[in-house]
């Protein structure tokens, strides 16, 4: 019996690189077009950072550095870094939603690049990260923050932040693979990232006066190195000695969590 079902001719054996790139872009579009129907998300991406900047600057500024103006160069880079860590959790949240809702299965049954669903999400989240950082800077500029360096340094700051965010987001990808509902990604994320971002120099100039062991943790935190490098790029100061340590941390984190995520995913599927 011959069948119309079989048509080996014309069926590709594997995904071509060009198709793979198109798949990633399509899936990134899908994650961004959601914002259109859920404006709350855009609000979430914008309002929260704005609120943080205003609260920190006006409530803590005078106590920390004597005035709001003097505190801005400290706090703006810090909040940008902290926000990037929190925003990274949305990668895991979205991924877990897709997995639990069956959307991920649909994607994986399609003849698309295996990495496209994840890469598409990460790409979309990177766009959202850039958006948040831009908003934070604009709010900062509006209340008196000044860029003390140049445009190249500013673009480098974007690049550094986004690179670190992408590398760091593997932690949230891993959480997404091991929990059974999206809300848990947020809970886990919050529990880890809150202390992680505060145990750094994100909101202070130096760790002087902080008890030894705590100061040691803060001085060696990847977040501190990221924040210091961001400060260097935005308001001047040492950059490279911090940037490479921050990126090395990011690389190390992704080298641990990417294989873990893959393993967890295979076990779960």
């Amino acid at each position, binding site marked *: 019996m011959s069948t119309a079902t079989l048509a080996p001719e014309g069926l590709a054996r594997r995904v071509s690189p060009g198709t793979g790139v198109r798949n990633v872009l399509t899936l990134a579009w*899908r994650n961004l077009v959601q914002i259109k129907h859920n404006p709350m998300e855009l609000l979430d991406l914008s309002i929260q950072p704005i609120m943080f900047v205003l609260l920190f600057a006006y409530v803590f500024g005078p106590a920390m550095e004597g005035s709001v103006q003097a505190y801005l160069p400290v706090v703006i880079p810090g909040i940008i870094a902290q926000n990037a860590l929190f925003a990274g959790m949305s990668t895991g949240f979205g991924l877990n939603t897709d997995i639990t809702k*069956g959307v991920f299965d649909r994607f994986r049954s399609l003849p698309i690049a295996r990495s496209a669903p994840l890469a598409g999400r990460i790409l979309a989240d990177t766009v959202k990260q850039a958006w948040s950082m831009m908003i934070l800077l604009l709010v900062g500029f509006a209340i008196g923050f000044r860029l003390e360096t140049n445009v190249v340094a500013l673009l480098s700051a974007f690049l550094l932040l986004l690179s670190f965010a992408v590398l760091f987001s593997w932690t949230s990808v891993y959480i997404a693979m091991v929990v059974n509902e999206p809300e848990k990604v947020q809970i886990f994320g919050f529990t880890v990232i809150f202390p992680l971002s505060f145990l750094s120099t994100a909101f202070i100039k130096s760790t002087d006066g902080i008890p030894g062991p705590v100061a040691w943790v803060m001085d060696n935190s990847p977040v501190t190195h990221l924040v210091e490098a961001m400060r260097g790029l935005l308001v001047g100061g040492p950059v490279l000695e911090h940037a490479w340590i921050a990126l090395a941390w990011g690389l190390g984190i992704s080298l641990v969590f990417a294989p873990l995520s893959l393993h967890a995913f295979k076990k779960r599927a």
Partner: protein
Amino acid sequence: MTYAIQAEGLVKRFGATEALAGVSLTAEPGTVLGILGPNGAGKTTTTRILATLIEPTEGSARVGGFDVHKDAHRVRQLIGLTGQYAGVDEMLTGTENLILIGRLLGMSRRDSRARAAELLDRFELTEAAERAAKTYSGGMRRRLDLAASLIGRPQILFLDEPTTGLDPRSRGGLWDIVRGLTDDGVTVLLTTQYLEEADQLADDIVVIDRGQVIAHGTSDTLKSQVGGQILEVRPLRAAEVGNAAAIVGELAGSEPELRDGLIAAPITDPALMPAVVRRLDDAGIAVGELSLRKSSLDEVFFALTGHHTDDIDAEADELAAAAKQEART
């Protein structure tokens, strides 16, 4: 002969649990293969292996002539999948959901839009096309999900419990759609907990329980395999049910089942029927209804597995209630 779907000795273990203990099945092109079984029997695991989502621990399978593991990418170009949970993006509109799949399948923007409109129309979703899928009812979501799996005109379609949690009307609508697909030559693999559904749609039925195929054949062969026919008697006067049941039981050689004044007993010898009529007549019992029918799939299932499907239906009702609850929130 080449099968559209062919699985041999599929075994799948998740840690210590064995989800599949050697499932073999085949489906001819253009037919509907029904996989029937209770929750946890291994229906979804089988579907996921065939749809290239997971690899079997042992055994192999070919879909459209290609090995699902070694030639997964080719298999994916031939299949469509509608999972147990509607795999639609709730944040996107119906149209966007379908365009997304079209674009991922390499169709141009214009072609995906046209195909999306065509399918939305076919599944009566045109009015809801520009609304986010999260506003859809359970039935609409399933239809959108099915539409999504049809964008690429698959030759082989996997439907994993497509009607679980749907109300009877939506279920009937989905059945019509499936029938329409096989008319177009699509091979359908359908898993279901509903015996009636398998009976209605499937050309061949594979019954699985605890990861194993316990029976397979057409709906008719399955019924006759288990022997049986069912003699049903309904006395005109309710007061005589007891006496009539005693007579039927004596002749059939087993305790008959009573349900709303209807006496039902499995029999193997059709010649028993005239004898029953004579004895009832002798006893002066007026008979309102008398029939001999093939046993239902429910009875087949009971004979095969030792457990009724009522528990499964109750579970399905719970699922439906849960789905409704979810839709409301």
